[in-house]
């Protein structure tokens, strides 16, 4: 039904484009005064007036209708005043299931009454929206048609609408981000009502194995985030140790030393690396790198665990090389030739020119790449789930197993668990921490770049 409504709306707008421009052309022919806008703008303006307000009504209805209907159904449900939120949502979902025809057991008379109520409300709501959209369309078309005239500034009007549309588009991303943050914060606050913030932030033990159901036997559980964060930093650190030198050096080689043919082959290959699914890297880490690291550790006389920070970190490092190399490459290549020549003309060697002129000039781009890579590393999940460990340990021994924030989020949310249990809620608190950490990293990097930027 909504589909037909939208198609009608689009068609009406299209028709109004033609009708509007035809009328504008007619009025402009034989007009004595100079006309302001070309006919097509009058047509577009009429189309916008016809389509946009109706479409906005439709969107509002789409977003709001189901919660309004829910409210009404629950309000008329006998004894609903005494029910808590969970019970209400249970009843509602049962009503909706029954209404959709999925019946598992014979519904009670109250439920049946509610179903009937729901159905009538839904019917009413769809009739209402058709009426509202049709009215908006008709009024818009009428006004848009009537306003056409030689002096009407249709071009300005259309351009203003386009501006609003662009503004709206840019707001979408911001609003979505705000929504994500607020949902994270909301769940995290629930978590902090069960586990004190200080314990979470400064606790040195992470053992979230608490009883999920009342009949299970388990330990008390400890929710100290430090070891988990520590593990994240160890693995990201290893990844950066692998990726930063490799990425920057390969960028320098590609822009300054390699011949064109080599560059033409290697650069796309490097960029393909960025497109390999992380699961594939995970396999590589588990099946190839981890055993190799283990035997290396054993041959060095170090007791290496099968899942090591080194294996996961190294593979993750390989994964993020393209971010660094590709952005550094762009940054280096965009340093003007005049800078190089100026340096060579003073008798600088290639190496000196690269170190003293090109790298400082390209620094913002390079730092940007490194930072992008770092936030990828901190947020990377698949490789560490597969190749790092599950036990939160405060260790800097790269042969030991460590766990990361993302791994913990995954393990906390896997399996059947209730959403009001500290174990599950802890995942959101971890998510919030991850978000804050990457935010801070970004801010630091932005400031560094601004401070040391060498503008050419």
């Amino acid at each position: 039904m909504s589909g037909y409504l939208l198609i009608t709306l689009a068609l009406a707008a299209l028709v109004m484009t033609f009708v509007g421009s035809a009328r504008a052309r007619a009025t402009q022919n034989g007009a004595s005064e100079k006309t302001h806008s070309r006919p097509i703008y009058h047509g577009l303006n009429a189309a916008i007036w016809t389509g946009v307000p109706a479409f906005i009504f439709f969107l509002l209805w789409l977003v709001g209708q189901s919660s309004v209907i829910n409210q009404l159904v629950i309000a008329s449900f006998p004894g609903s005043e005494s029910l808590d939120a969970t019970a209400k949502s249970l009843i509602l979902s049962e009503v909706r299931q029954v209404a959709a025809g999925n019946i598992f057991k014979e519904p009670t008379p109250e439920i049946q009454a509610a179903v009937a109520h729901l159905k009538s409300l839904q019917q009413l709501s769809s009739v209402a929206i058709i009426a509202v959209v049709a009215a908006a369309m008709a009024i818009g078309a009428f006004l848009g048609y009537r306003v056409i005239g030689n002096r009407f500034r249709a071009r300005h009007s259309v351009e203003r609408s386009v501006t609003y549309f662009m503004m709206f588009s840019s707001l979408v991303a911001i609003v979505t981000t705000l929504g994500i943050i607020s949902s994270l914060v909301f769940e995290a606050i629930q978590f902090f009502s069960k586990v004190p913030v200080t314990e979470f932030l400064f606790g040195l033990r992470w053992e979230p194995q608490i009883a999920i159901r009342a009949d299970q036997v388990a330990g008390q559980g400890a929710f100290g985030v430090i070891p988990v964060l520590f593990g994240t930093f160890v693995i990201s650190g290893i990844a950066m140790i692998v990726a930063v030198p490799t990425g920057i050096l390969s960028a320098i080689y590609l822009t300054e030393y390699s011949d064109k043919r080599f560059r033409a082959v290697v650069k796309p290959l490097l960029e393909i690396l960025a497109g390999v699914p992380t699961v594939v890297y995970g396999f590589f880490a588990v099946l190839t790198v981890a055993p190799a690291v283990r035997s290396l550790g054993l041959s060095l006389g170090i007791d290496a665990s099968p899942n090591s920070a080194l294996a996961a970190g190294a593979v993750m490092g390989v994964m993020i090389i393209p971010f660094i190399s590709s952005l550094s490459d762009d940054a280096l290549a965009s340093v003007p030739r005049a800078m190089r020549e100026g340096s060579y003309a003073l008798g600088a060697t290639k190496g000196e020119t690269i170190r003293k002129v090109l790298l400082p000039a390209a620094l913002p781009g390079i730092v940007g790449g490194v930072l992008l890579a770092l936030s990828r590393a901190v947020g990377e999940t698949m490789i560490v789930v597969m190749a790092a460990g599950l036990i939160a340990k405060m260790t800097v021994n790269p042969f030991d197993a460590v766990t990361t924030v993302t791994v913990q989020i995954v393990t906390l949310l896997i399996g059947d668990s209730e959403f009001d249990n500290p174990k599950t809620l802890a995942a959101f608190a971890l998510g919030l921490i991850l978000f804050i950490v990457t935010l801070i990293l970004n801010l630091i990097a932005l400031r560094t770049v601004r401070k040391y930027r060498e503008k050419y």
Partner: protein
Amino acid sequence: MNIMSEAAVEKALEQKMSDAHFKMVGKDVSVYYGEKRALFDVNLNVRKNTVTALIGPSGCGKSTFLRTLNRMNDTIEGCRVTGSITLDNADVYDQSVDVVELRARVGMVFQKPNPFPKSIYENIAYGPRIHGLARSKADFDEVVENSLQKAGLFNEVKDRLHEPGTGLSGGQQQRLCIARAIAVGPEVILMDEPCSALDPIATAKVEELIHELRTNFTIVIVTHSMQQAARVSQRTAMFHLGNLVEENDTDKMFTNPDDQRTQDYIMGRFG
């Protein structure tokens, strides 16, 4: 033992004197960009403590010749130079020549001012630093001040030595680039249209500077402005389509040139 006539000895001596006069000597210099030939057997001598101007219509190979003198063409892929170029009678294209050392002796200033994105101080200290010409902070301070003095820029920038060189005006930037070249202590300075991005006042300052620099350096300057060539140079060389047409005293060149093409170009009849 050979016994030379009086006259022959005289002639040889004169030859020697004039050789000593020539700072750089180009013999049969040809340059190819890949398949394309840009210079045809150019023979041009650059005299010591003299400003030599290279003139000619666009694309005639002035920059190309200039860049052979300090081997800047080496940085261009596919560029090949034949013939010989000597600096104080030593071939600059010889295998044994260190191009880094050569460029320290033959500095260059470009058409567009290209200060490094560093402070004024660091721009000038760059050359001395890579060549190890100064060690202590005091040494560097001295080099920086001296070079800026010689480039006539010191008074304008002495309070902002640690601000970015890119923040100066175009004319100041160009003088900064000249100071930067001077700081390495070169013997020859090559300038490729150093004033083409500058306004008349900044141009006048740079021209004045070139005039003064002549006492300490040998200068080769490419210019499109006949007036500039006449004002700053003592010798002028005219290029056309990759050939050296004429090389003469500047005064003679602008009053009574030997070659018809020079005459035409100077009169603005082509180019």
